[in-house]
C-alpha cells in the first residue's frame, strides 16, 4: 500500500502571518502567471474528461 494521502495543511507562525497578509493585501500576479493560468484553463477546456 502506498503512503496515504495527507490532508489538511496547517499554517503556523510566519507561514500563517504571510498567508493572512496575502489575504489582506494580495500581490498582483505577474504577466507570466496570468499567461500560465490562462493556458491552464485552455488546456482543461480542450481536453475534457472522457
Amino acid at each position, binding site marked *: 500500500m502506498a503512503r496515504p494521502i495527507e490532508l489538511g495543511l496547517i499554517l503556523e507562525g510566519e507561514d500563517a502571518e504571510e498567508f493572512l497578509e496575502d489575504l489582506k493585501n494580495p500581490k498582483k500576479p505577474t504577466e507570466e*502567471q496570468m499567461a500560465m493560468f490562462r493556458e491552464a484553463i485552455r*488546456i482543461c477546456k480542450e481536453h475534457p474528461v472522457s
Partner: protein
Amino acid sequence: MNQISLDDLQVEYLRKSHDVSSFLCTDDDLNDFLKSDAKKSQDELISITYLCLWQTKILGYLTLVTDTIEVKLIEMTDGVDSFPYARYPAVKIARLAVDERFEGFGIGRFLLFWATGKVYQLSKEVGCRYITLDSKRESIGFYEKFGFKVIERYKNRAFPPMYFNMYPIVVQMRQDNSNDY
C-alpha cells in the same frame, strides 16, 4: 520515439477497464498508488484519479482530493478582524506522475496545467480558492514560477507542501474582461 503532440493527449477517469500494470515512473510509491490504491480510493469517494493517455498508452496520471488550509495564530480568534475563517477551501493535487519512458515530452507540465484548469472550473461550482500539493524537491522552482508558495516550516520534508492562491488571478481576469467572465 516520435514527438508527442500535446493536442493529441486524452484525459480519462481511472476505470476498472484500464490496464495500469505497465505504468512505471521513477517513484515506487506513485507506482503503488496507481496500481493498488487509486481505484479503491476513488470507489470510496476519497479521491479521483485522471489518466493521461496518448493513443492507448498511459503517459501519466494525477489524483485530486478536497483539502483545507488551516491558519493557526495564537492571537487569532474566529470571527474577529477581517479573517472570518480559520480554514480555507482547497483542492489538493495529491498525486502527479509521468511514466519514465515519456519524460521530457512536457507531460508533467500538461498535467499540472490541466489540474489547475480543472480546479478553476470546479471553483465555479463549489467554493475553492487554493490548490495544494506536496512537491518533489526538484520541482519546487517550477511551481514557484507558477505562483505556488512553499511552507517554510515544512520545507525540509521529503515532499514539501505548497499552496497556490487562485483569487488574485481571478480578480485580474475579471478586470481584464477575460472571455471566461
